[in-house]
Structures are given as structure tokens and as C-alpha cells.
């Protein structure tokens, strides 16, 4: 495909035009010096510490050639790293999101602490390697930290490829993803039969399907869990805004519904990291703030779920 070239030249073009316009809003900096301590969980297969709140890019970072929105996305990334975030998740399925990430990483300088998580998403097993290489070029990273088989599409050949890549040091971690409950049986089978570092599944206070089998299995097998759709693509925010936040939410420092919902997700001990997507700097800060304060315990979690059911 010609995307490699068009993607990269698009990014360069926009960067050049921004530079010409003197719009260097985000100077490169040394990230480790400016980052606060955030709560982390260990990736079971290596013990590497991962901040429990990451960043998704579905829809929010698909902004095409729009220089204004590219800059806004880079500002979200800057705020994310400043607040101590590391994992950013994308996919070749997400339109121009990978280009946007590449633009952001270029703009912010090479020292960003990014943990790059991407996916392979093609039903043609022969296209996997080419797609991954193309994705790396779009991000502008020499290798990904994590590669996942997106939605279990052609998972057998793709996992074979990812295992080979991991053995050759071309990727650090491998995994599988789904956002559909009806794929959970198949998902479990893959978890049972394949060596995986990560799984990525949908999990939020309303969609708790994975609590019964998948999360215990992940703990049992030592697999890190990324929770996607913590806000069910904003539906939960819309559903609860206007409803009263319970007074006892202050016990675990949830100041608004977004933090209430996010804290529910990350307080499950099997969750390694959640990846809310956002277009807004204030939202990314609010989300990362969840990684610094206290989290609800098991009793408070039950109370949270019951309260939400009662609304």
C-alpha cells in the first residue's frame, strides 16, 4: 500500500507548515524530570511497572491532516506524559490515529516515556508483517513495546508471527484483544493455549462480563490486562452526568463521574492498566489524577456497582 509514504509525508507536511507558522507550542523536554509518581502495576511476565492509566486513540486521534487538531492531540499527549502516563494504544484500524501519534511523538521529542501498544488487524495472514512495519513507520518508533492481535482476527498465524518477533527482539510483549462479550469463550481458549503477556478486553462498571472468568484466568496465568472502553465510548458519562455523585465517593477521592467510573475499573486487582481515550487536556489530567489518589476497596466497589444499578 502507498499509505506509508502518504502517511509520513502528510505528517512532515503538517509539521513543516506548523514550524513555518511559528506554532512550536510544545517544546521538547526531558520527561523523566517532570513526571509525578503514579500508581503502577507490574506486568506479570517481566515485573515491569506500568502506570495504571494509559491513553486510547480510537476516534479521538483520527484527525487526518487537520493541523489544529494534530496540535491538540500533541497537547493531550504532552499532558498525559507530564501527568505520569506511559501506555498509548492504537491500531491500523483507527484511521489516521497512528500518524497523529507519530506527529505527537516527533513534536514532543525523542525522550518521551511512551509505552507503544499497537495491533495487527488483517484477515490475510500474509499481510501481518507488512502491516506492523507500516504501523511502526507511522508512529515513528523503531519497535513496538506491545503488539496485540486485534479482535482475534486471524489470531493463529498472527500470534505465530508475534511470537517469532518477540523471540527476535522485535517486540517486547505480545497479546490479544476483543471488545465483544460473545468472543469471550474463544478468547479464553486462546488464553489457555497460548503464551501471552497481555490481554485487552472491555471493562467498565456496567459491562462486567470479564469479572467471572477472564480476569481470574488472567491472574491465574500471569497475564497483564488492559481494560478498554472504561466509559463505554462516553455513553456512561452521558448516562450519569446530571445524576448525583454519592457523598461517599470522596472516601476514594472521586471528584466527578469520570473519576468514579475510572476508579472502579482500575481498582480491580487483575487490571494492569486502563486506556481511556480523550481529545481534551483537562480530561487527560483528570483521568491520570485517578492514578495518584486512593482507590476503592472490594466493599466500596460493590457499593459503587450497586449505586450505579440503582440510578
Amino acid at each position, binding site marked *: 500500500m502507498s499509505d506509508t509514504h502518504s502517511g509520513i509525508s502528510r505528517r512532515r507536511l503538517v509539521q513543516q507548515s506548523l514550524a513555518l507558522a511559528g506554532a512550536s507550542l510544545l517544546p521538547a523536554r526531558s520527561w523523566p524530570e517532570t513526571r509525578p509518581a503514579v500508581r503502577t502495576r507490574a506486568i506479570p511476565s517481566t515485573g515491569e511497572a506500568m502506570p495504571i492509566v494509559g491513553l486510547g486513540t480510537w476516534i479521538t486521534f483520527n484527525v487526518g491532516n487537520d493541523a489544529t487538531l494534530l496540535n491538540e492531540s500533541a497537547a493531550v499527549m504532552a499532558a498525559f506524559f507530564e501527568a505520569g502516563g506511559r501506555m498509548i494504544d492504537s491500531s491500523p484500524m483507527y*484511521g489516521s490515529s497512528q500518524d497523529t501519534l507519530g506527529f505527537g511523538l516527533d513534536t514532543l521529542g525523542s525522550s518521551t516515556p511512551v509505552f507503544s501498544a499497537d495491533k495487527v488487524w488483517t484477515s490475510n495472514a500474509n499481510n501481518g508483517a507488512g502491516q506492523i512495519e507500516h504501523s511502526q513507520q507511522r508512529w515513528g518508533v523503531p519497535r513496538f513495546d506491545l503488539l496485540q492481535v486485534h479482535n482475534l482476527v486471524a489470531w493463529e498465524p498472527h500470534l505465530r508471527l508475534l511470537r517469532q518477533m518477540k523471540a527476535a527482539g522485535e517486540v517486547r510483549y505480545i497479546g490479544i484483544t476483543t471488545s465483544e462479550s460473545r468472543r469471550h469463550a474463544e478468547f479464553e481458549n486462546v488464553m489457555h493455549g497460548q503464551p501471552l503477556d497481555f490481554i485487552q478486553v472491555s471493562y467498565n462498571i456496567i459491562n462486567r462480563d470479564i469479572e467471572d472468568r477472564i480476569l481470574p484466568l488472567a491472574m491465574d496465568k500471569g497475564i497483564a490486562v488492559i481494560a478498554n472502553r472504561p466509559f463505554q465510548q462516553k455513553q456512561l458519562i452521558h448516562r450519569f452526568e446530571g445524576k448525583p455523585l454519592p457523598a461517599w465517593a470522596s472516601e476514594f477521592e472521586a471528584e466527578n463521574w469520570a473519576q468514579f467510573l475510572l476508579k472502579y475499573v482500575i481498582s480491580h486487582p487483575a487490571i494492569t492498566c486502563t486506556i481511556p481515550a480523550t481529545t481534551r487536556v483537562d480530561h487527560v489530567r483528570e483521568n491520570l489524577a485517578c492514578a495518584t489518589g486512593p482507590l476503592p476497596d472490594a466493599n466500596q466497589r460493590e457499593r459503587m456497582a450497586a449505586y450505579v444499578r440503582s440510578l
Partner: protein
Amino acid sequence: MDAWFSYRLSDFILFSERVYWRLFDQVNTLAGALLPVLIALGCLMLVGVWSRHRTVQTATAFLLAALWISSAFLFLWHYYAPVNWAARYAVPFFLLEASLIALMSLTRQLTRPLMRNDPRLWLGFSLLAYALAIHPLTSLLFGRTFDSAEIVGLSPDATAIATLGILLITARPLALWLLLPIPLAVCMLSALTLYSLGTPEAWILVIVLLVILVALLTPKLNLHDGNDAVIANARDW
């Protein structure tokens, strides 16, 4: 391929409403000084479709074909495809429509065969005038600025609505059936996209589709070459 069956329509909408409308901002900025020219050319078409003069008819059809090409490359290819990979696959269909319009014009299938009092003529004019003059203003109506106005020749929807209008006015049966499917498909797909984005503009396209349906279903409007005799008597319009 069973992976595809597991997706819903909204799963294919990879971008936000804000990003979608800003695409028009960008293409209008790119068109820049050409924008008044495009609007003027659109108005020329409004005059051109009245004409029974062969050269004017051909020029109008070729102008319409050129507007399909400009909308394919400037909007679909350059701006829309980066946020929606499916847009790339629409480009050949836009080029096909442009080629068919040119072909139908050269083979005298776009000659305005209707009587002046035929309602289809007036539905066609209404659609064309709407596409040229009112559709661009809907950006203001729905709380955006004129910067994201949808202009015929840049916006696929505006170009498709204008084409549907022109076809109702000028097309003989063969041209009608050959040239209708692509602009109809554009309107349907856009209606679905806008509906999934949750924007009320989707209903405009539904109304356009209903107008076309009404035009095609009205018995009086079925074209027969027998109309030519009547037209011969009506040459002095």
C-alpha cells in the same frame, strides 16, 4: 471474513462529528480563491439546464462531470480518505459518474425532454437550486460557521444533490437509470454516516431521497420517447 459480520455501522465511523465538519473547513480553505468561481459555475449550471441549445447542454454536462472529479480528488482523496479509509474506494465511482455524464451528454441523452408543466422539472430545479444556494447555508443553520459550508464541486453530498436535480430536469430514460445510482448511493451512505455521528443533517439527505422517490413514482413522470412529439411543439419555451 466472518470478522466483518461482528461489526455494527457505528464501528465503521472512525471519526468524530467535529473532525467531519472540519474537513469542509479545510477543503474550502484549500479551494480559497476558487470558491467564488465554483459558486459562479454552479449558478451557470442553473441557467445551462434550461437551455435546449446543444452546445450549452454539452457544456453544462461537462461542467457537472468536472465537479464530480474535483469533489473526488479535493475532498474524498485529499481530506476524507485519511480519516475514513472507505472514502478511497468511492473515488473510482465518482470518476465513473463523471465519465458517464460526459458519455450521456455526447450521445444526446441529457437534453431536457420534459414539458414545462411537468412536476419533475420543478422538483429537479428545486433540488438543484437547493444544492447551490441553500445547502451551503445549512452549516449556519446547524450552529457551525460558513467556513464549513458544503459547496457543489467540493462536497460529495452537495454535488450528488445537484446532480439528482439536473438528472430530473435533463435526463432521458437511459441516462436517468445509468446516472442515478451513484448520486443516490452517495446520499444514502452520507445519511447513514451523519446518522451514526448523531447529526440532524442526516435528515436532509433522507428528504432528498424521498423527493427522488416521489419523482420516480409519479406516473405522469414516466418518460417515453413519445414525449418527443410534445417537446417538438414546445420548442418555443
